[in-house]
């Protein structure tokens, strides 16, 4: 395959045998790629020379979509339904609770970045019917959730309760905000069997809001990327299991028990990835007793974007580690963001004065952290929140 894709020209050919050790050695000999490489020359550089992209697009087999990655990491992707859907469903089925709920009459709602961004589509407000695609109801219409009005939040709650979804695909920050709105308004939310949390890092505060408003719902991380597929699914024991039939994953040691995720996609006709560094840090688990067959890596958790980790003389602090410290010191907070400053950091906190968290963080990082209480935290242009941002 490698020889047919312009981006991988010059790479050594794959070994003739399927011997795992030989394949691993071959992969390890190849360079990794990142988003920059995927952007350059797209889409021709990432399509096999033997494939006719124009024809595939005309037939609707593949389309070009933009990822909702954070500002400096956005890219366009060749979206192949015939590859995406099965691997996503298969990943979800790794969780027995999710698998059990995905019956024929399965009702699903989506609460993530909007189905269509107003900045590019200019389609105005969509009706509920227009936001229902393949049976899935897309709740959000705002590119920036900090501009959700009370009326908009109430409209989403009403639609949620009216649909009564069995499962929800949600950005954890968005769902946390909706749950808090319901709690403040005293509205009881229909409890789905499960929510798959995706799009961005799940914070403890988001989980706390979900547990308060939806105590019987199972909330499970579904980890992957639009360009790479769904790589890991959280089981009911809180471990993340590799969706091994659709991707080969390498975990490159990043020190301190952390690893970088490098993906090679399997069975993908369009946009095959060969040693793609997804840019996140994860932590490996010592296995899991949930009963799933051992088909690949098991993670204890996703640690967040490598670029957002804070390096100090005391070591590297990932976004998840920072969340442990910040939220661990103050369970009243709803959201936080750490910002670099001239002499330390500013800690923007929603829902609290941030003093306890800043004190705890300063002690852990060994630097000054000034608390800044705020009403909202601005997401990136993509609609995703960044937990750590530069000065």
């Amino acid at each position, binding site marked *: 395959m490698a020889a047919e894709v312009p981006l991988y020209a010059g790479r050594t050919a794959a070994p003739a045998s399927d011997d795992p050790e030989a394949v691993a050695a071959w992969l390890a000999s190849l360079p990794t790629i990142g988003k920059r490489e995927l952007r350059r020359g797209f889409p021709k550089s990432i399509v096999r020379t033997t494939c006719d992209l124009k024809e595939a697009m005309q037939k609707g087999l593949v389309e070009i979509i933009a990822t909702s990655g954070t*500002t*400096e990491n956005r890219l366009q992707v060749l979206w192949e339904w015939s590859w995406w859907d099965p691997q996503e469903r298969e990943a979800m089925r790794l969780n027995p609770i999710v698998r059990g709920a995905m019956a024929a009459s399965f009702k699903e709602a989506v609460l993530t970045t909007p189905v269509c961004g107003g*900045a*590019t589509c200019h389609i*105005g407000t969509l009706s509920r019917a227009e936001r229902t695609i393949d049976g899935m109801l897309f709740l959000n219409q705002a590119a920036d959730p900090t*501009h959700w009005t009370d009326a908009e939040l109430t409209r989403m709650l009403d639609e949620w309760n009216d649909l009564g979804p069995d499962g929800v695909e949600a950005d954890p920050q968005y769902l946390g905000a909706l749950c808090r709105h319901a709690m403040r308004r005293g509205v009881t939310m229909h409890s789905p069997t499960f929510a798959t949390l995706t799009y961005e890092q799940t914070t403890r505060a988001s989980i706390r809001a979900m547990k308060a408003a939806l105590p019987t719902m199972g909330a499970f991380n579904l980890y992957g990327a639009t360009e790479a597929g769904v790589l890991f699914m959280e089981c009911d024991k809180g471990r993340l299991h590799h969706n091994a039939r659709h991707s080969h994953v390498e975990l490159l040691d990043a020190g301190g028990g952390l690893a970088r995720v490098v993906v090679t996609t399997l069975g993908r006709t369009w946009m095959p990835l060969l040693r793609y560094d997804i840019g996140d840090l994860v932590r490996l688990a010592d296995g899991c007793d949930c009963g799933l067959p051992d088909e690949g890596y098991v993670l204890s958790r996703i640690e967040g974007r490598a670029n957002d980790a804070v390096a100090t003389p005391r070591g590297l602090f990932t976004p998840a580690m920072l969340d442990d410290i910040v939220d661990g010191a103050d369970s009243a907070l709803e959201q936080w963001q750490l910002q670099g400053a001239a002499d330390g950091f500013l800690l923007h906190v929603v829902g609290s004065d941030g003093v306890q968290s800043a004190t705890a963080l300063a002690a852990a990082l060994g630097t000054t952290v000034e608390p800044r209480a705020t*009403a*909202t935290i601005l997401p990136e*242009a*993509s609609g995703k929140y960044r937990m750590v941002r530069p000065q």
Partner: protein
Amino acid sequence: MPNKFKADFPLLSRDVDGMPITYLDSASTTPKPRAVIDAVTRYYTEMGANVHRGVHPLGESSTTAYERARHAVAALIGASPQEIVFTRNATESFNLVAQGLGLSSDDEVVFPASEHHSNYMPWRLKAKTVLVDIDDEAVPRYQQLKERLTPRTRLVTLAHVSNVTGVVAPVEEWIAIAHAAGVPVMVDASQSVSHLPIDVRKLDCDFLAFSSHKIFGPSGVGVLYVRKDRFETLQLWNVGGGMVNYHGEDRYEVREAPFRYEAGTPNIEGAIGLGAAIEYVRAAKMDDIGKHSRALGAQLVEGLSALPGARVLGAHVPSDKRVALCTMSLPVPSMTQANIARLLADSHGILVSGGFHCAHILHHRIQLDGTLRASAHLFNDEEDIERLIGALRDLV
């Protein structure tokens, strides 16, 4: 000990005719710290794209930086970003409300006679103005508010801090009185926002306005805070690009607030600079700035009042109810107050305002043909005030 903020302001290191400048005109406009200049430059050198439209990285960076400024403004005054409308200046904020409320000539707007023209003219054009009197020192007779309210009153408005006297108004009391009568209140925070901590939730005001350039930010950007529920009462006023979600021949759909009030390409670099300015004052701590301002204000009043024949406006107001802004009339034969201001600049490098400070009615009422205004800020110190007082003492 040298003032620790002064070095942050490149402008303050320049001279006039070989003399170092003593800048005492912050009520007119504030100098800009390096952080603000850098933020504006960074927009031009690293982003440079339009906002809310871009699908490329520069457009997204511009949008993020612009919206981050909106969040900074909201955080500074305890509002939500949805409640912050960017305008060209405080004047435009008043005009937006004056037009947006759909006032008629029978509607009454109540405010002190001492208000700046920006908080006077918009109401004069759209409605009937009802003035609260001022005393001989130009301080409003605040207790008159109740008797000025009628069933026709549509709005009460006042300056949080007077741009002429530097006196802090009892806005909380006025808001309580007006709200008890079912009347919304607009606050002009132009002179207070950089001197005092402001929390719109505690004030419970309905509208609040200020200009970026009065809080160390660039010119050409203003802020209008609108309490969330008050947007329903504000009609569209300036329409065009950027404020619609959909525009077809059959219908159009406007965007949510605040964007529906921000038609056209905004002053992107100005807003980003304002965001940096807010970061600057927050780092300096608003409480500390307030203390410093009150101390310099007291020094100004005391020192200027001691000058022979000086008439200092609002001198009777306690020092904890004023900021570092003091206006006076100094009797010097055959010289106007503007002449004195010019002389201070030319002979001493001391920069103050001389004239009417966009408050003609105030000056008419207290029968003064112009005044001299000195306004200090966080980069000034006691020596600056002493320099001014010494120069004026020599003059008289």
